[in-house]
């Protein structure tokens, strides 16, 4: 295949849709190391480069640590950069994640969410990226293949905003989104060029004006730099909303900014989740609404920055909140989203019971019947106005662990 990439509505694999969207953003440098279930994205991109349909520099590396390190250097030199990884690969990048954010480099990376070893497992949950929540990367969790395309472009707009200048993870559920074939509107190069401005770094490495990036900083200054990263995170909140709204104006599609809501206005029970599970939950809400159950759905699109104000507004008048976490913060007994939803109400007048449910670890299916049982438990708490106890592992096979 030579010539330019086709645009318009096609039935493509989720991974191809992401690779195509990344290509349309004209990254100067791509560096990645293949790992299931991310592989198809970086294979497609390397094919684009080999075919000459995009003129990115593709740096082959021997590990994920090197992949992200290569992008740290490239981004500091003023290049627009892209990578993708998952699970153990993301864990191997851990140290470099802090550096990329601390150096304020607007790298965009797709995370194809997968469980963490041990035991080794290649299927989906959110443990890999949720475990990186304190690294200073913006994290967007995506619902379907079309949103992935659109959010990839938005990610560059957010990351490269000079008030933000932070790296962004666009998180998609492994296999569920990466290997699904769906009709997707593939973006047109001209339209993306018009939408997404060229990357102009705040500061860039330049041999004619040598500077040191990522310098040693002693106790006199360190806290201030960390404070600036938190301020940049805060500054990204309206930018995430803006990017989503600007995209809507240009392309006619919107999936929420920091959050999205569905049937929450008069909801007594509000379900909270991130990622592709939102699709299932929309169906459950439709079904239960048709039976008169006042249930609504809150999609957390941006987990970092955490949209506490937006969440509080949505849940303030509910009778109960049920959080479905595809991760477990071991030692707290619950997923990270549950903890943070609880925390965002602390020191306010909002008092809504929060039920935590750890679901779907390591690719365990989350059928509609499971969600219905979760809603029944939530209804029970809503009725009694009490009884929100500890978070629970949903659909655990007791016969495998006792007796």
């Amino acid at each position, binding site marked *: 295949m030579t010539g330019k990439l086709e645009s318009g509505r096609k039935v493509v694999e989720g991974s191809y849709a992401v690779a195509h969207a990344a290509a349309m953003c004209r990254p100067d440098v791509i560096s990645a190391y293949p790992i299931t279930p991310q592989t198809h994205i970086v294979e497609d991109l390397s094919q684009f480069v080999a075919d000459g349909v995009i003129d990115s520099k593709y740096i082959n590396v021997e590990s994920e640590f090197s992949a992200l390190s290569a992008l740290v250097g490239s981004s500091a030199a003023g290049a627009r950069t892209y990578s993708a990884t998952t699970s153990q690969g993301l864990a191997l990048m851990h140290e470099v994640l802090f550096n990329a954010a*601390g*150096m*304020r480099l607007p790298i965009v990376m797709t995370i194809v969410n997968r469980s963490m070893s041990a035991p080794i497992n290649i299927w989906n949950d959110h443990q890999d990226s949720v475990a990186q929540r304190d690294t200073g990367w913006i994290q967007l969790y995506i619902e379907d293949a079309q949103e992935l395309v659109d959010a990839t472009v938005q990610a560059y707009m957010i990351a490269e905003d000079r008030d933000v*200048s932070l790296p962004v993870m666009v998180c998609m559920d492994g296999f569920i989104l990466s290997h699904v074939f769906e009709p997707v509107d593939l973006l047109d190069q001209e339209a993306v060029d018009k939408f997404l401005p060229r990357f102009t770094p*705040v*500061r860039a490495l330049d041999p004619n004006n*040598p*500077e*040191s*990036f*990522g*310098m*040693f*900083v002693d106790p006199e*200054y360190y806290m*201030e*730099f960390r404070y*600036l990263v938190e301020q*940049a995170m805060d500054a990204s909140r309206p930018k995430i909303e803006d990017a989503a709204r600007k995209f809507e104006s240009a392309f006619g599609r919107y999936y929420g900014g920091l959050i999205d809501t569905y049937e929450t206005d008069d909801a007594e029970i509000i379900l909270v989740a991130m990622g592709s599970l939102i699709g299932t939950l929309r169906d459950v809400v439709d079904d239960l609404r048709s039976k008169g159950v006042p249930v609504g759905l809150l999609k957390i699109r941006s987990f970092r920055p955490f949209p506490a104000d937006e969440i509080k507004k949505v849940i303030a008048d509910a009778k109960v909140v049920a959080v479905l976490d595809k991760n477990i913060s071991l030692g707290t007994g619950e997923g990270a989203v549950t903890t943070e939803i609880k925390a965002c109400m602390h020191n306010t007048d909002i008092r809504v019971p929060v039920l935590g449910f750890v679901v779907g670890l390591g690719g365990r299916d989350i059928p509609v019947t499971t969600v219905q049982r979760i809603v029944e438990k939530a209804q029970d708490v809503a009725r009694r106005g009490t009884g929100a106890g500890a978070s629970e592992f949903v659909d655990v096979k007791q016969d495998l662990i006792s007796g």
Partner: protein
Amino acid sequence: MIPHAAIGDAGTTIANKTGSWRIFIPVYHAELCNGCGTCETFCPEGIVHKRVDGDTFTADYDYCKGCGICARECPKGAIEMILEEK
């Protein structure tokens, strides 16, 4: 005012004289040195140089951290590590 990230003038390692980190100091015995340059090649800091007045080598003590690699590698045993009194 600090910049948005830890970015500063290049070459500040010249101003930061790391020689104060040293505990053992390498003493270069010119009379034993055959000028092979192994010490210069192995120095991780790049601060071993030829003496201005000859073909033998010595370290720049403003920056030598006293790691002792030059002494370990010298084929003539011409570099001696001595506990430095400050």
